[in-house]
């Protein structure tokens, strides 16, 4: 059976035009999807049943036992942390946050090691953005700064920006100018009209230089800024200003480099500066398919996009203190529930070591690095394949993922609901 308009749950592009052929409980073929989409749908490496660490080995246990034991661990903990959420649907995220509220736990999502700094920058200066269709239909200048969409969001250029025709651009790739800024010559840089190589850690200075030029202060620019020549800066600024509609996309090259949120703040302020001359928008390239959804759900329930601490009863937010890496680094938490992410692979070693020290429970369809650090892992259905729910694309457009077939695994929502019920019973009214 061929299913049309399937939503890919890999990256923040959330492409919704895939055609997937399904034979019973097996995906047979994927059309229109990139390599990552294909791996996602065709992959067949699920953990078969819940497992529990047993001394130096592992044993299979029932879902009932796994959930009950998880509830006990969480109730016993003084400072539990519920981490992850970007790899699951909004309905599950919602229950997870209420669970944290009930436990007085700290709840954080993967933004913390991704676009958390972008959020901090937005909280300082705002975010002039737009939906991706606005870029597709109008943008004649596209900038990718510190991001390599070809590897991380393969269809971003062909579906939404450089190559996709739009209402006002009938010959898109001829009519658009593509600027790529990076510290290394990525695949994306290979097809750019203008590639700017920046010395590592030099983004802030280059952004400042461009802001100065846009402000008309060319005379103050030194011959070279972080390895970028003055001539190139002038050329790029002129190109930016020549746009009728310019779209800037930025990635972890800004959020993870020295300067972190200040880099992003500078990029947003460049956008705002350009907006005084012509139309400009800026957007973060969100990684996980539903990381933006986790920010949205966190925000409408708690008021904050990530790093929320319920220990005081109220929702308390102080990134740098209530962010997962810091909490783990300080060895502060004494139990961890991981849902839809892999901190074992993506946190610094010291954090992984603390996860191994405390009872860590993982809810995830696949074994991964965190599996080895955990006490219990509960396999669940994969949203977009055998579970469905809401996801938010990187530009904030909410899309309902599809369930392609009913599988044998429970969804994140079902597991978390059962967990919530058990914890609520234990905690009393």
């Amino acid at each position, binding site marked *: 059976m061929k299913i*049309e308009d399937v939503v890919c749950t890999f990256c923040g592009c959330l492409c919704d035009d895939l055609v997937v052929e399904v034979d019973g409980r097996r995906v047979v073929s994927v059309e229109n999807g990139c390599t990552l989409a294909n791996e996602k749908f065709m992959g067949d490496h699920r953990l078969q049943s819940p497992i529990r660490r047993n001394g130096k080995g592992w044993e299979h246990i029932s879902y009932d036992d796994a959930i009950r034991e998880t509830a006990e661990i969480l109730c016993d903990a003084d400072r539990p942390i519920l981490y992850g959420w970007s790899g699951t649907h909004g309905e599950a995220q919602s229950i997870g946050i209420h669970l944290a509220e009930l436990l007085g736990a700290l709840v954080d999502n993967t933004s913390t090691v991704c676009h958390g700094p972008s959020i901090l920058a937005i909280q300082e200066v705002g975010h002039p953005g737009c939906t991706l269709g606005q870029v597709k*239909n109008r943008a004649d200048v596209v900038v990718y700064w510190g991001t390599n969409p070809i590897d991380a969001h393969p269809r971003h250029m062909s579906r939404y920006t450089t190559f996709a025709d739009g209402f006002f651009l009938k010959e898109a790739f001829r009519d658009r100018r593509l600027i790529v800024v990076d510290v290394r010559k990525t695949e994306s840089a290979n097809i750019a009209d203008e590639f700017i190589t920046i010395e590592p850690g030099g983004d802030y200075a280059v952004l400042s230089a461009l802001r100065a030029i846009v402000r008309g202060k060319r005379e103050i620019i030194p011959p070279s800024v972080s390895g970028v020549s003055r001539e190139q800066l002038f050329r790029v600024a002129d190109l930016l200003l020549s746009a009728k509609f310019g779209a800037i996309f930025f990635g972890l090259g800004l959020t993870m480099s020295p300067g972190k949120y200040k880099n992003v703040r500078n990029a947003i302020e460049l956008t705002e500066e350009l907006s005084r001359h012509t139309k400009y928008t800026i957007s973060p390239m969100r990684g996980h398919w539903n990381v933006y959804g986790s920010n949205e759900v966190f925000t*409408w329930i708690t008021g904050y996009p990530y790093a929320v601490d319920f220990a005081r009863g109220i929702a308390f937010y102080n990134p740098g203190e209530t962010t997962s890496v810091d909490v783990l680094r300080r060895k502060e938490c004494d139990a961890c529930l991981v849902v839809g992410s892999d901190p074992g692979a993506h946190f610094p070693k010291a954090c992984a070591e603390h996860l191994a020290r405390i009872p860590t429970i993982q809810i995830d369809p696949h074994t991964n690095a965190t599996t080895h650090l955990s006490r219990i892992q509960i396999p669940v259905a994969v949203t977009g394949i055998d579970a469905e729910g809401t996801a938010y694309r990187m530009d904030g457009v909410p899309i309902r993922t599809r369930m392609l077939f009913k599988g044998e695994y429970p969804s994140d929502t079902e597991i978390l609901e059962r967990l919530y019920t058990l914890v609520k019973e234990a905690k009393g009214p």
Partner: protein
Amino acid sequence: MSELLVRNAYVIDPLSGIKGDVMDIAIRDGKIVEEVGRNAEVIDADHCLTLPGGVDSHSHVCGTKVNFGRYMSPEDMRAGRTARKGVMHVTSGYSVPTTFGNSYRYSIMGYTTILEGAMAPLEARHTHEEFTATPHQDMLANTLFDGNWSIMEAVREKDVKRAAAVVAWTLSAVKGFAIKLTNPGGTEAWGWGEDVHSILDQVPHFGVTPAEIIETMIRANELLNLPHSVHIHCNALGVPGNYRTTLDTLDLVPDLNDKRQTLYLTHLQFHSYGGSTWKDISSKSEDIARAVNNKPQVAIDMGQIMFGRTTTMTADGPMEFKLYMLHHNKWSNHDVELETGSGIIPVYYSRKSLVNCVMWAIGLELALLTKDPWQCMLSTDNPNGAPFVKYPEIIALLMSRRFRENELALLDPRTAHYVPLPAIDRELDWYDIAVMTRAGQAKALGITGVGKGHLAPGAEADIAIYPLKPDSLDPSTEYQQVMAGFGKTRYTIKRGRVVARDGEVVVEGANSTIWTKAITPPEFDLSVDPEFVKKFEQYYTVRMSNYPVQDVYLPRGVCIATEASL
């Protein structure tokens, strides 16, 4: 079967013609009935003011831009935090509270129905998700059509029926309630960093004017027989001298419906400015109110501003950028492909700012100078003028001249030269307030038929009992009590169930979402229209089959179906 009896209630129910009688209200299974059995639970209202549940006909509480207002404002979240308590979830926020924060605070003030003022169709799913997390109120969503390409093309072709078909398809796809036009044409122009400045400006590339969009949409709305009228946020919001644009817009309105207004003009305070710069801005509330008084076919809401800190958010992207150029605090913008835009900035309305003082006066003047309370709703365009928790204070200001004078004395002393407020003696009475906070809204929205805004048998048992005794209270002097009383109900009853009592929320709540579906003849079914389908295949970045809001997002949807006259 659950039964409840409210005894000794001092009832004002304007839609039923009850202007202050002490009576009992019987409730069975969530509806008001003639009488209930002996075993019914009893609430003694003790002669307190008892009104139908409050209806807010224009408020921003759920959806993409509201949530972004929270997202970008941790300082606002910190300004209003409550811990989890009983059935109440944690809440955060002052001007843009979390969904539960909104819901609890409205509930405590006796509000049971809220219309979200602006929902971008492409992002409707988000609004509905937040509706589900706003458990104590029945929710409705105004759906944005101001920059809709299909609409503008129909307007250019002078094809009212096609415009109606686009509205019908979209409202039913996104489970919206009514047509919202925010700065019509201006949001599309903002796609190029531009704006329209009067109702006769051309929208770039589309060859239509705001006036043509407004006129076409008014007629399309009536062709679909929708419960509410077109709901407009006029062009040129917040610009000195914009009252002319507002008067021009009022002049466009024909009288096409005998049950309700033909055009609803929202937050009119922001559209009643004289002068030509921020230095000589003045109140033109008298001109506007005169036009409204002469046109029974329009209804307005105040858009009152109140001093202090708040967050402005609107689909009017270009206006927010202009405002940002004034405030230089922080600015967010979010354009939505083929449809609309939006912008958010935090603001502080100050008594030391003459402009802000003039704005404050204009809102009150509009309410006091509009003769018929059914034509003017009480609103702050929450949170743009002020958070809705300021409603009790506004009510007190409208009911007490003395309170107004006391307030005026605190303002920039030049204010009196620019506004007529000091000369207005009128004090509104309990009945006027009842109209302006629930009955008028329910009538204007066209939801009396689904049992909103009144207490006649058959109506939804949404009731607010305030600790106010109109028989013995003089609002003119005891305005502090009025303010306190409207701020915290003794009981808020939602569909026959007590949901809040003396400032505490007592149940988890389960709301409904009211949406409209205009049934059109098959030749107007756009789901198979080649031009319309092309929009999805070529210009939208979401497939047509993934666009409509699935039923699962409306666990308790209430559909108002109409038969279109196409």
